[in-house]
């Protein structure tokens, strides 16, 4: 019998497995994906948000605990657990050496990412390289890994973990267990149920794209909630960004993001604007646009820019829809030609152009128009014009198992002595809503390590109590 069973194969699961092994436990990883799809959403990540009081290896300047905490407070609007959040924040200041020990390499942030060189440490090659390194280290340390192994049921008796049951009926017992198998974003029925039907009779979730793995179906989450595990978080909350509508249904990852929104206007299928495109820097506001588009009829929107914007944003994966006039753009997007012309004209006339600077919150803004555009408002008047269709892209959901500083799963407010949780499955404790770049990996890494340590400690305690008996 294994000491620790880790359910999941992403960053949090691997951090838990490696830490439990370092704590002396024998460890089994159960990854539901086949080997070529292993790693869950972690393969789509790129960096870790880290606090530091002075410049540290790949990180410039300082990003102190308080600033990190304030950033988190701001994006979550207070929907966060301060105690857990501060554990995570502090943990990120020292965890990189541990990651390096297991083969992860960091790089100085290069093109197009300089503004995050202060707050985020970048993995050389991205999240899949990180996951590969952790898997290699796990194998070297004698951790057993089973791919294509899906857990359907977790046997818990009076809050005590006993075994997991696989989809083929096989039962695997363990002395303790870490659940780190992600949210439910790729379970389309559950998404549909969560988002419900809107006032137009539409089921918005039918039009969502999933940016990450198709293996996060939330079976274990549902199973635990059905067994009375304490939950936290809103079922409709998650990391939901606006991505190119032409993206694949799953695993489109980072390249499908469009960061030209703040350089132009965004209209819905009625060719009307609906939100301040220049509210804040794109990385900060990027995570709100998925929800904004989800709330539009048809769950679609269009970012429209002119030639002045070209070269000012990261190149998108799909080619732009191009037209010499706004009317041509409208025709290609199947939008009402007159309405789009009117929207653009009204916007152009309202622009109060100052000194355009995309690197600061500049003074180019609109006047006497609703919604306003508070920064980077330049008239859209220089052809050719370009458009990109937008759809909501879900990265991960925030509905979670409630936990504490030991990463224990709770049943009726009682901490389980040997069942722990990490990663997206508990991220909702810290992220009630909103998102800030790299924090998913911070939560996964730090709580993965805590869960692994707690699981190893639980095994030791059991052994000791057996020895005493």
């Amino acid at each position, binding site marked *: 019998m294994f000491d620790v069973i880790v359910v999941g194969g992403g960053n949090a699961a691997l951090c838990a497995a490696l830490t439990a092994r370092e704590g002396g436990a024998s460890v089994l990883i159960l990854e539901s994906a086949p080997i070529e799809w292993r790693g869950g959403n972690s393969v789509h990540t790129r960096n870790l948000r880290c606090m530091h009081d002075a410049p540290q290896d790949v990180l410039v300047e300082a990003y102190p605990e308080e600033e990190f905490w304030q950033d988190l407070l701001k994006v979550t609007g207070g929907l966060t657990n301060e105690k857990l959040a501060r554990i995570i924040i502090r943990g990120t200041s020292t965890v990189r050496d541990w990651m390096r020990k297991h083969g992860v390499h960091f790089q100085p942030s290069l*093109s*197009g990412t300089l503004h995050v060189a202060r707050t985020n440490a970048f993995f050389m090659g991205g999240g899949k390289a990180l996951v590969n390194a952790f898997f290699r280290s796990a194998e070297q340390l004698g951790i057993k890994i089973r791919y294509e192994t899906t857990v359907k049921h977790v046997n818990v008796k009076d809050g005590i973990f006993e075994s997991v049951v696989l989809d083929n009926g096989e039962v695997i017992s363990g002395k303790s267990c870490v659940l780190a198998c992600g949210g439910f974003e790729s379970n389309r029925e559950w998404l549909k149920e969560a988002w419900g039907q809107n006032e137009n009779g539409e089921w918005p979730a039918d039009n969502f794209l999933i940016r990450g793995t198709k293996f996060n179906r939330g079976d274990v989450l549902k199973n635990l909630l059905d067994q009375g595990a304490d939950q936290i978080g809103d079922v409709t909350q998650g990391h939901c960004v606006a991505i190119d509508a032409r993206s694949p249904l799953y695993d489109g990852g980072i390249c499908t993001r469009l960061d030209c929104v703040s350089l132009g206007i965004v209209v819905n299928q009625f060719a009307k604007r609906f939100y301040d495109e220049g509210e804040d820097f*794109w990385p900060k506001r990027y995570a709100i646009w998925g929800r904004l588009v989800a709330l539009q009829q048809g769950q679609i929107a269009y970012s429209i820019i002119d030639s002045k914007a070209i070269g000012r944003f990261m*190149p998108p994966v799909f080619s732009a829809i191009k037209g010499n006039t706004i009317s041509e753009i409208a025709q290609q997007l199947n939008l009402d030609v007159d309405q789009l012309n009117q929207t653009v004209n009204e916007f152009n006339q309202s622009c109060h152009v100052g000194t355009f600077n995309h690197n600061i919150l500049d003074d180019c803004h609109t006047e006497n128009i609703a919604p306003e555009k508070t920064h980077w408002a330049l008239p859209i008047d220089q052809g050719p014009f370009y458009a990109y269709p937008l759809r909501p892209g879900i990265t991960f959901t925030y509905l979670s198992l409630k936990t504490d500083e030991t990463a224990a799963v709770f049943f009726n407010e009682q901490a389980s002595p040997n069942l722990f949780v990490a990663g997206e499955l508990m991220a909702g404790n810290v992220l009630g809503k909103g998102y800030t770049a790299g924090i998913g990996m911070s939560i996964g890494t730090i709580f993965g390590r805590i869960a692994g340590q707690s699981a190893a400690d639980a095994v030791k305690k059991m052994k000791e109590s057996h020895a005493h008996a």
Partner: protein
Amino acid sequence: MLTLNTLIADAKNFNQPSESVMEVQRVLQICNACRYCEGFCATFQSMTRRLDFNVADVHFMANLCHNCGACLHACQYAPPNEFGVNIPQAMAKVRLETYQTYAWPKQLGSIYQKNGLALTMLTSIAIILFLLSLQTSSTGLFNTNTDANFYAIFPHNSLAMIFGSVFLVMVLALTLGVRGFWRQVSTDPMMLGAAKDATLDMLTLKNLGGGHQQGCNEADDAFSLWRRRFHHMTFYGFLLCFAATSVATLFHYFLGWEAPYSYTSLPVILGTVGGLGLIVGPIGLLCLNLNRHPLHGDAAQKPMDIGFIASLLAISVSGIALLALRHTPLMGILLCVHLGFVMGFFLMMPYGKFAHGIFRSAALLKNAIEVKMGKSVSVGSD
């Protein structure tokens, strides 16, 4: 007029992207929107200096790619992902086109790439047989004088003339090829500092470092320095052997010191050390080549790769054997075998894998110039 028409036709061909070029354009658009690999090597850094990729850009970047495999194993879009990004393979296919596009004469390039091993070996064997027949007619199959005097079999001057002229013609063919390549990919002025950087990149194989200097990928996602080491042994082994021949030529013409040289003489020491490197290196590269991850590179090019490796190995093994047995009756036969392999290698130089070194060096130079000029496109944010 005919030449002009050919030139126009060629230019049209160049502007009409091939399937391999279009595949690189497709995957680079995905890479440029992702950029997770920008820390790995110069190829991705040159990518971030562009928003789109014309045919010349693609040829340049394909030759900048060292086929290290790191970006494939790190790629979230690698097969089976729907985007199916495989940069090492896409680049390898275009590199093959580079060798073909610029080879002179072109036809020989395409024959070599399909049948590298067979073609090199057949050419070498034909030359060996020819040399053996020459030798047999003058001294018999086994030579009776055992004072290691090669020139008793083939006079020095004829050897120097035959090998010298073949070598020069092949160097000319390669130079014309790389000049055509350079004219397509680079319009920037030459810079001395850039040449220094490019030379260092070339001599150290910096781009096989995986970005963290722990090496490239072979059979799996683990990093390994072995390809770099074996390549170094091969490359420097080759240079030492070349130096041995050059020193011996200088000895002969300027100092009047004629072969055979003693085991402790400079040409023999250079040749021995180089020859050993040229045995260990190619054997290592061959093992790595045969065990590489199936998605790395272009499997269709294995005959070319293996032909090149086999040719180098045949030269070094026959050379070392010749050195060891030069005082025996086998000397004459071994001399024919060794010279045959050397000649076969020279003849095939511009049409296959050897060209990678030349085109890659040109690409490294072009890249170093771009870096020095500080070329960049400014994109707002992540």
